[in-house]
């Protein structure tokens, strides 16, 4: 450990202190990012196919269910085996590894719920139906 409080910190060459910040940020935030992609996909799909002059609206619920299964599956993977994602991103090199994993796991759980909720509408409501 580099900063054991009982130990005088050793001189570290600066460039070795470089952390894989961006890969680790992506690995930790993978689940909410998946939620973002899923949300954008289902919203744009419904929004554009209902309004745009291209037809194909009937396939919307199936596409939403498929997207939900894929995004939800990835989220679940991140929830249960996200540590491997972190390690691949270089987490073993940082002291915050365990903290990142703890945050990643809860984020994955929340995002999974949010993705399932977003997809649930497709099972109960038809495409391009207007209220009233």
């Amino acid at each position, binding site marked *: 450990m580099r900063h054991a409080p009982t130990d005088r910190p050793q001189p570290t060459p600066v460039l070795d202190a470089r*952390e894989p910040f961006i890969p680790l940020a992506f690995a930790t935030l993978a689940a*909410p990012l998946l*939620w973002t992609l899923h949300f954008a996909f289902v919203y744009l799909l419904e*929004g554009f196919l209902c309004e745009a002059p291209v037809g194909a609206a009937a396939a919307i619920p199936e596409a939403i269910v498929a997207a939900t299964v894929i995004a939800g599956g990835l989220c679940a993977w991140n929830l249960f085996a996200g540590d491997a994602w972190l390690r691949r991103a270089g987490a073993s090199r940082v002291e915050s590894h365990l*903290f990142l994993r703890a945050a990643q796991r809860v984020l994955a759980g929340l995002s999974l719920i949010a993705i399932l909720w*977003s997809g649930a509408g*497709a099972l109960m*409501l*038809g495409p391009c139906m*207007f209220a009233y």
Partner: protein
Amino acid sequence: MERMLPNPEPRPADEEAQLLKIWATPTGWRWPTAVNNTVIGLLYIGAALAFFVLAGILALVMRTQLALPDSDLVTQDFYNQLFTTHGTTMMFLFAVPAMEALGVMLLPQMLAARDLPFPRLSAFAVWAYIVGGSVFFSTIFYDLAPSGGWFMNPPLTLTEFSPGDNADFWLLGIGFIEISAIAGAIEIIVGVLRTRPPGMTLGRMPIFAWAMLVFAGMIVVAFPAVILATMLLELERAFDWPFFSAALGGDALLWQHLFWFFGHPEVYIIFLPAAGLVSMIVPTIARTPLIGYPLIVVALVATGFFSFGLWVHHMFTTGIPALSLSFFSAASMAVAIPSGIQVFSWIATLAAGKRIGKLSVPGLFVFGMLAIFVMGGLTGVMVAMVPFDWQAHDSYFIVAHLHYVLIGGMVFPLFGTFYYWAPMVSRKLLSPTLGKWCFWLMFIGMHMTFLPMHVTGLAGMPRRIWTYSEATGWGPLNLLSTGGSYLIAAGVAVFLVDLLRNFRFGRGGPENPWGAGTLEWLPNDVYSTRSIPLIDSREPLWDRPELADEVRAGHHFLPNAPTGGRETLVTSPIDAVPQYVIQMPGPGWAHVLAAVFTAACFLLLTVKVVVPALVCAVLAIVSVLVWTWELDKGPDAGPVDVGGGYRLPVYLTGPDGHGWWAMVILMLVAGSLFVAWIFSYLYLWTVSPEVWPGALPEWSTAALSALLLASSVPAAMLARRSLAPRASRNALTPLWIALSVALLVGGLVVEGLGQWQHGADPTRNAHDAMVYMALVLDGELAFAVAIMGAYVIARHYAGKLDRVRCASLENTQLLLYYTAAQSLLGLLLVHGFPRLL
């Protein structure tokens, strides 16, 4: 085991005097040049509080008008100006700036940094905000205030229905303040991630720092959407580019999508820092670490994400398909979970800690916040239920809901904060007696004002009406609300009296009066902490009571000023390992003048005095160049010993440098703006496919434009390559820089001419307006790159540019790469998409 300190030996006697001299705040007429975060932060908070009071007075006038039915205390038009200015001021001039102000004020102290990494940038943001905000607010006194509502929905705000300058004051004034907010956000992100004390890993960061990180990240994503909306509306008002006019293929709903894509996250942008403050105060009250720290961090981050899935929440009644509504309903539910986590985490912390006796004033505000915010959150879940929202939307039920959320979620924590953190900068504590009066008046007044409004709304009273008839039966409820609003005002007045009587800026107040555990309660002076502590826990002052004395004696990092100027330690973003020392600028006039001239330029444009506005723009740019000229100081003063065996450089370029980080975040802002443009382009196509053209300009012009844009990238790379070794120069460097800028600008000119010759006319229809809008967005970036290029060339001839000292060139390069990439993507969409149809 004996703990080893980074600088165990006694420090030289004159060291502290040197620090005091370097960090001294200018006095007298030079005071506006100050950049110290406590001075700037206090100015920022003071201004935000002033706008709160002013907008509150407007609210009182409105409540007085509504106290009785058929009242004619104010005219219809003035009332419309009142609620527009009240909402706009509270959101843009009070809530967001107040939170950024707390960030500027508290973050460096909590992170034991000497200052934020870009001190002049925060000072610029503050001055710009004060000048711009004051002028915007004063329009209410000259009957010039906008009257289109704080959301400024077109077509009402188009020239046809709002011919005066009033709407332009909103568009230019607020657009300008949004820029100030983004400047603050960049500062906060780099500050939180890069200027933490050694050992403060992400998992040990104070919750407020997490909250501010998420806050700033949300500003980066959300504000560009409203900036684009503002630009589109102003272009339509000034030059008839029909983005929102249905007759020419525009759509009024495009505004609502862009505005609420900003507007809903805005609520959380305001709430998160306040929740972070509560998470700091609760452990102090309970005398125990926060229970569920990682859960709270996750709650903040998750709120940051989910709050972007809520914008259609404000459009449930616009006739959107039911399935689309269901996604937003789902996200509205999802965003409620993190709030649940936070509330129960605070409860658990209170249960785990020592039993509290009598509540202090900050404690009262925290409990008051809980009561109000939980109620607001519950009505929030109600309006997330689409069918109920069809009734509640745009009625007084929403007025009640939003004030519960914002007053509970932001104003109460803010007042708690004033009482809690005042001792950090004041010689005297605020009065507990007056504090209690202030709390109870505000708390009772708050419920008396807003609780009845739930009923008023469901009884049919819509928002934004200046009068109602007696027959509606809303009179008594409104009278009750008006009475309550006077109680709130009395509470705020008591607070102001308390400030006048007891707040005295300066050091020497009680040190750590609440017995808190975080670093802002370390002994401090103008230079912040004497030395930057090595941290190994979340509440270092509780776990290591001797830390304060060690820090004061200079036994931790950077106890001196090795370069002889202002500096602070930069650490790595995850584990906070010391990386280098940044040399920061001190007081100066240039950034103040830049702010004043920028504000003047925007405001003169508003009243359409074009030539003086352009003069101000030039002066603003010159001021910025003068300001930045001193920033890229070079590596000569280093490397320096900061203690703990670290010998650190004082200059760094590349992906570890703080300038690189700031530029990348700026690119994210620009990227967010561009994504909003892509959305708008595609959205208008779905609404009005008939105006999308059958014929486009020839491929050849687009290909030529793309070739020029793409070749600007290698030219910029060669500019970097051509740099001469340290302290010498290569005559080719300026040529490469000029070439790369010329290629970039040339590419855009070719595309613009191609469109023009093809007959595209931005006033003809929404498609053509969108095509030219891409050029506007690319062009403004190219303009910035051109100025930066000229600046770098000047530095070359001044002998301030070489292979090592190249931060200015590096930033120019980065922005040029981004601009080229964005322009190419724009070309692809504009020329490719219609060919797919």
